[in-house]
């Protein structure tokens, strides 16, 4: 499942299961590419993972809370706890491998 969320929606959804939070900006090339990669990941993994896209510029409270300093930043979570963080554009195999380590 892949969805762009607000802070409120994020807080309602991040605590169960494996979640990938994608902090992105609409003005960032790597973020645009990553959105296609994540769509591809979503197609492959389906409901095994929740991919929550967080607009860096519109959700300052979340970026502060998670100390996100740049975009794109992927935060991998298991039951609400951060387990891994990747900065910059990532390829599909690494993202899937990181998710599968948490499943």
């Amino acid at each position: 499942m892949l969805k762009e969320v607000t802070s409120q929606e994020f807080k309602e959804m991040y605590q169960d299961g494996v979640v990938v939070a994608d902090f992105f900006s609409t003005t960032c090339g790597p973020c645009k590419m990553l959105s296609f990669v994540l769509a591809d990941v979503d197609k492959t993994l389906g409901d095994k993972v929740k991919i929550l896209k967080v607009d860096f510029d519109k959700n300052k409270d979340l970026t502060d809370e998670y100390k996100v300093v740049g975009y794109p930043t992927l935060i991998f979570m298991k039951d609400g706890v951060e387990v891994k963080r990747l900065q910059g554009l990532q390829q599909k195999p690494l993202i899937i491998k990181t998710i599968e380590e948490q499943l």
Partner: protein
Amino acid sequence: MTEQIKYTKIEHIILQQNRAEKEMLAEFENGDYTIENPLVKYNAYLINPLSAVVLFKTDKEVAVTVRVIGKTPAATISHTFPKAKTHILPVLGLYSDYENTVEIEAYRGKKTTLKINVPDVFNGKKIIDYMQTTPEYLEDNIIVVSPAGQDLSTGFDFAGDARWHLTIPCVFDLKRLKNGNLIIGTDRLLKMSYYMSGLYEMSLVGKIYKEYRVPGGYHHDSFELPNGNLLSLTEDLRSDTVEDMCVEIDRQTGEVVKTWDYKNFLNPAKVSHSGSWTDEDWFHNNAVWYDENTNSLTFSGRHIDAMVNIDYETGELNWIIGDPEGWPEEYQKYFFKPIGNNFEWQYEQHACLITPDGDVMCFDNHHFGSKNPDKFAKASESYSRGVRYHINTEEMTIEQVWQYGKDRGAEFFSPYICNVEFYNQGHYLVHSGGIAYDKDGNPSEALGPFAIQAGGSINSITVEICNNTKMLELKVPGNYYRAEKLTLYTDGINLEMGDGQILGYINDSREMDTEVPAEACGELMPEFCNAHIEDEYDKFTFLSRFVKGDLVLLQLEKGDEIHRYYISTTSRPATAMCVGTFLDTDDRNTRTVISKTGLSGTYDVRVIINDKKYETGVQITC
């Protein structure tokens, strides 16, 4: 309307040199050249404009001396070549912007005086601030500085005159091999920002005998092993990390015969970070040294503030020199305990070396000067130094036995690059090549290439110390990666005829495996992009300008076969930029290198910009 973006075919410099040499030899064989009337080929190998080759025959075997007359008697550079009937002699040490006088003198025989006019090869650019030394000290050596920016390799004599220069950007380290040749990074970029295709072995006259292509590219440093093989720092182009591998290259075949992946002896997730650390560049390997006494390799890792020693055969970790703060318990046994007075750890060091008696030296950039971000030193409060440590690997103690540079403070502070050289006990070179000031003249927090972009200034200071007395100081504008002291001629072979060779291979470039939907508009790329393709036989470079934040993919298409290469249009803050030679002053300009390895046939080059796919009109044949 043009139907193609700009396209340039670039011939490898070795192939250009092979052709130039053949033409030179043909002219020589077709003429009657004697010592009184030799054939003179200025800049015969196209890349050293302060050199020439003279060719002539003598009736009898005779030794010949070549002499470039100095601007003062002490500055004359001469060399006597072994006896022969056919003489093909490099003339080294010509002056720029000068009518040079060159004497060719047979052993107890005839002397011919030639005039070789050399243009201003520096185009009026100031290349030196000062050289402070004596002819008695430096003799016929030159101090060569190698590029870290736009300024190219140049060698200076005792008077501060340039006597050696390369016109191609061979970056990073430059070392003299046992056979007298130089080993130096190639000028062929494999991946931004500074990963090069490999190493050139060349003579001082500029003839490149071999390009040793390194599959994952070359960066920072190389080392000649006792068996003649070469160590090259490298990386895995398909990995998520950089600058964390070393390979041994067979000197004859160019094949990789041994590989060390640093992730096998250090866990990137557990190492202690320097102030410049990033996920991707977790080690930042800037030097390698082989120690025959212990059959071990020492790697300098800028981003872990440490020099790491491993066993050459097994790759097992032996010891780590660095501040142990922040390293987990499992690594603590590899660290040393300081003893003695005035001890300080090094931070973000470069150019580790092992002295003949087992001490460890490096250029301690002392960037940030701490493991603790709260205590990071500002540039204005910082210093750099050459430092020598005595280590006891039985008792795991370390003692600082020498340093130079700390007292000079920020004036000698380089947050990146630089080196030290050991000549003998008490006799060292210390090169602070990354000094930078901001536009207001204050020590710059930004590294040299970025300080320049922001209107600042940069320089390098090289000193030689003998028994705590400064014997030489060279100051040049520009940042230079390393400095080395060399003689122009060697006692061995100074120039050999025959085709240069291109050995080894480069790995394929990293592709994106995700398809981006885009409308094929059939239009040529927008003029704004100013797109250009430079095509070489084993790779090509795509240069283009984009609007920041654009989504850009370069695609190679052949029927259903599509290869996708992502081009970042978002500048990222760089914590390391050891060579800024290939940076553009306009950060909207991108430079993407695609290796032809793994590709076969002819491909159309197309470019996706956001949701449109454009034509380039260029086909690449692999």
